[in-house]
C-alpha cells in the first residue's frame, strides 16, 4: 500500500502511522528528531537533580548532622518515589499525551530541588530527596514519546539513545555539581554550608527550562498534539479504567517489570554504593572513588543506545525472538560479571569487570525497551510505566536486601546481587507472542496468530465499530517486521507486507 503526497511534511521517511523509519541523531527536524532531543534532555535534567546530592554529601552530611543510616534512607527514598509515579505517568501519557505529562512532572517536582536551600534536618533532607526522585518517572513519557514518533524497525534505537543519554545525567552530575559548588565557593565567597544550597538552584533551573522547551517546541505525535487530534476526531479519547485494565492484564508487562528491576534497578543501586565500595575496599581517595563511580553512570552514553541498536539489528534478522534472546543473554552476562566484581581483589581487575558489567547491564536496559513498545498498543503507556516502575522497585529492594546495615559486606552484597540478577532474568523465557513466538518456541501455528489479532484483542467490537482501533491496525501492519527475515518467507497465512515508506 502506498500513500502519496503527504511526504513533504516530514523530513524523515515515515510509515503509515507517520512514525519515522530512520533515526538521524544530529538533526532537529520537526517533529521526530526534535521530540528526541527534547525528550532526552529533559530526562537528563531529572537525573541531574535527583542525584545532585550524592557528590555533595560530604558537605551536606556535616551541615545537616546526618548519620550513615540517614544517608542510606535518603538514598532509598530518592529512588522509591518513582515506583508508583512511573505507573501513574504511563497512564497519564496514554490519556493526555507525553508532552503534557512530562512537562507537568518537571514543573511540579522542580520546587523540591529549589527548596533544598531550606533543608535543616535529616527528615527534611529525606523528604526532599523523595520528592525530587519522583521526577525520575519522566522516563515513562520519554519512552512513550519515542515509541509514538519512531517506527518498529528503529524504535529500539530511539528508546535506547533517549534513555541512555538521559541516564548519563546520573554520572554527569557527579562531575558537574562539585564544579558548580567550587565555583560558588570561590567566586561568591559563600561558606561551604551555604554554597551547596546555592548550587542546587542550578540544576533546578535546567529542569524548568527543559519543561518550557517541551511545551513550546514539542508535540505528542507526528500528526499533532493529543488535544487537537482528539478534538478533530483523528484520535479517540480513551478511558482510564480500560487503558489501565488492558495494561495490567498483560502478563508480559509483569515479567518485563521484574526483569527491568534487575538491569535498571541494579544500575541505580550501583550508582548509590559503588563510590563507597571502591573507597573502602581499595583505600582510594574520595575524589578518585567518585570519578570511578561517575564512570559507571557515564558509560550510559554508549551502552544503553548500543542495547537499543542491537535490539533493532537482531529484529531485522530474527524478529522479536532475536530481541528477546539478546536481552536474556546480555542481562544474564551482566549478572555473571556482577558476581565476579564482588569476588575480584585487585583494583585494576575491579575497574575492568565494572566496565564490562556496566556495558551488559545498561545495554540490557536498552534492549528491554526494544521489546516494551510491542507488548501493547492501546496501553503502551501503562506497560512502559509498569516496566519502569519495576525498575525503580528493583533498586529499592536490592538496596534494602543487600546494602542496608552491616549484615553483608559490600563485596558479598555485590556477589549476591549478581546471583539475583541471573535468577530474576529467567522468567523472560516465559514471554510468548502468538504471532512471533518467544525465546523457547516459535509463533503459534493457528491461523489467528497474527499481529492484527494480537493488537485488536485490546478493543471490544463496540469500540471497533466506532473506529477507535485504527491506530492499532496501522501499528499491527508496521510491526510485521518483528517476524524477522526468514520467518516472513515461510509464513503462508498472509501476503507479504513490508514497512511502508511515504
Amino acid at each position, binding site marked *: 500500500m502506498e500513500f502519496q503526497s503527504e511526504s513533504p511534511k516530514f523530513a524523515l521517511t515515515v510509515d503509515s502511522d507517520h512514525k519515522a523509519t530512520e533515526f538521524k541523531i544530529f538533526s532537529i527536524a520537526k517533529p521526530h528528531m526534535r521530540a528526541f532531543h527534547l525528550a532526552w534532555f529533559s530526562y537528563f535534567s531529572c537525573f541531574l537533580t535527583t542525584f545532585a546530592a550524592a557528590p555533595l554529601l560530604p558537605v551536606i552530611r556535616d551541615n545537616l548532622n546526618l*548519620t550513615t543510616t540517614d544517608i542510606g534512607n535518603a538514598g532509598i527514598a530518592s529512588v522509591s518515589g518513582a515506583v508508583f509515579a512511573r505507573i501513574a505517568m504511563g497512564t497519564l501519557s496514554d490519556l493526555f499525551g507525553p508532552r503534557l505529562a512530562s512537562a507537568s512532572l518537571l514543573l511540579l517536582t522542580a520546587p523540591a530541588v529549589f527548596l533544598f*536551600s*531550606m533543608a535543616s534536618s535529616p527528615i527534611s533532607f529525606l523528604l526532599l530527596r523523595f520528592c525530587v526522585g519522583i521526577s525520575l518517572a519522566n522516563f515513562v513519557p520519554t519512552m512513550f514519546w519515542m515509541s509514538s514518533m519512531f517506527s518498529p524497525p528503529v524504535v529500539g534505537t530511539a528508546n535506547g539513545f533517549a534513555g541512555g543519554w538521559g541516564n548519563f545525567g546520573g554520572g554527569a552530575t557527579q562531575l558537574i555539581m562539585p564544579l558548580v559548588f567550587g565555583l560558588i565557593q570561590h567566586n561568591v565567597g559563600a561558606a561551604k554550608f551555604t554554597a551547596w544550597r546555592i548550587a542546587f538552584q542550578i540544576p533546578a533551573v535546567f529542569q524548568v527550562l527543559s*519543561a518550557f522547551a517541551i511545551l513550546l517546541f514539542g508535540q505528542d505525535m507526528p500528526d499533532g498534539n493529543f488535544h487537537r487530534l482528539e478534538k478533530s476526531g483523528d484520535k479517540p479519547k480513551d478511558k482510564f479504567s480500560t487503558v489501565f485494565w488492558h495494561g495490567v492484564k498483560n502478563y508480559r508487562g509483569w515479567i518485563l517489570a521484574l526483569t527491568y528491576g534487575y538491569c535498571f534497578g541494579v544500575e541505580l543501586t550501583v550508582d548509590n554504593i559503588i563510590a563507597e565500595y571502591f573507597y573502602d575496599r581499595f583505600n582510594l581517595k574520595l575524589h578518585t572513588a567518585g570519578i570511578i563511580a561517575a564512570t559507571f553512570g557515564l558509560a550510559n552514553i554508549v551502552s544503553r543506545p548500543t542495547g537499543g541498536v542491537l535490539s533493532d539489528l537482531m529484529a531485522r534478522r530474527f524478529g522479536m525472538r532475536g530481541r528477546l534472546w539478546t536481552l536474556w543473554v546480555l542481562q544474564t552476562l551482566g549478572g555473571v560479571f556482577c558476581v565476579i566484581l564482588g569476588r575480584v581483589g585487585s583494583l585494576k581487575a575491579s575497574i575492568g569487570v565494572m566496565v564490562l558489567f556496566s556495558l551488559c547491564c545498561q545495554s540490557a536496559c536498552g534492549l528491554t525497551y526494544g521489546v516494551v513498545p510491542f507488548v501493547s498498543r492501546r496501553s503502551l503507556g501503562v506497560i512502559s510505566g509498569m516496566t519502569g516502575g519495576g525498575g525503580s522497585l528493583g533498586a529499592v529492594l536490592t538496596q534494602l536486601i543487600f546494602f542496608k546495615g552491616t549484615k553483608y559486606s559490600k563485596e558479598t552484597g555485590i556477589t549476591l546481587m549478581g546471583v539475583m540478577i541471573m535468577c530474576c532474568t529467567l522468567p523472560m523465557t516465559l514471554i510468548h507472542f502468538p504471532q512471533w513466538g518467544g525465546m523457547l518456541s516459535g509463533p503459534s501455528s493457528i491461523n489467528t496468530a497474527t499481529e492484527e489479532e494480537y493488537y485488536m484483542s485490546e478493543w471490544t467490537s463496540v469500540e471497533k465499530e466506532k473506529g477507535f482501533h485504527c491506530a492499532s491496525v496501522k501499528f499491527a501492519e508496521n510491526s510485521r517486521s518483528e517476524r524477522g527475515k526468514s520467518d516472513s518467507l515461510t509464513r503462508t497465512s498472509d501476503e507479504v507486507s513490508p514497512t511502508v515508506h511515504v
Partner: protein
Amino acid sequence: MASRSEIVLASLLLFLSCLAETSDANGVVLFSSLPNTLEMIVSPHKPEQVMKPAEGSWTFGGTLKAGEDKLSISWRLNQSFSAGTTDSGYKTIKVKLCYAPVSQVDRGWRKTVDNLAKDKTCQFKIETRPYKHVCDSFYTQCTHRLVLPCGLEGGSASKWKYIDWTIKRDVPSASYFVRAYAYDGAGVAVAYGQSTGPKKNYNIFEVQGITGRHKTLDVVSICFSAFSVLSLVGFFVVEKTRAKPT
C-alpha cells in the same frame, strides 16, 4: 648479568615502592603506641559557659557557636615526666579539634582507627607551632582562664602554652574535645595529650555550626518554586482559551 629491560623494570618497581612509602609521610604509627605525656585544658571564653559540677572538675555548659565563640586551649608536658629528657625529641606540636564518640556513632567518615594515617577522629587543625622547651612569659587577658603564668611553678617544670582560637565557621554541629600531637624532626608522631580522658567521656563540649541558610536564598528559592508551578497553571489556561474558538 641483568639485561637492560630487567634493570629498567627493577628501577621502576623501586621507584613505585618509594612512591608508596612517601605517600603516607608518617609511616604506620599507631595511636595506641603513643605515650600520653601532655596535659591539656580547654575552656570557653564566656563565664556563663563554664560549669563546675563537682569539686576539682569543671565542664562546659551550653553550646559554643561556630564562627563566633572562642576557646582557650592550654597544654604543657605532664609534671610526672621530666622535662628535658621525655620531651627531648618533640619538635612540633599540632593542636586539633576532634570528634567525641557520641558524634562518631553511625558516621563512618569520622571513625577512630588506630593507624594514625587513616584515623578520622581529628579533622580540624587548630594550631601548629614549634615545641618550646623554654619558659615563655606572656600576659593573660581573661582572668577566669585556668592558665598559670610563667614562673609560678617551681623548678624546671615545663610551663603552660596556650592559644585563643575562634571556632571556625565550617565546624559542623557536633560534640568535641581537643587533642595535641607532638611530632619529632622527621614529622613522625611521638606523643599526644588531650583535654579528656582515655574513654573520652568528660569535658566534652558541643559546638553549634552555622545553618548555611540565608533569608535571601530562602526567598529566592520560594519565588522560583512558585514560578515553576504557576507557569504550568498559566500554560494550561492559555491552552484551554486557545482551544475554545475551534
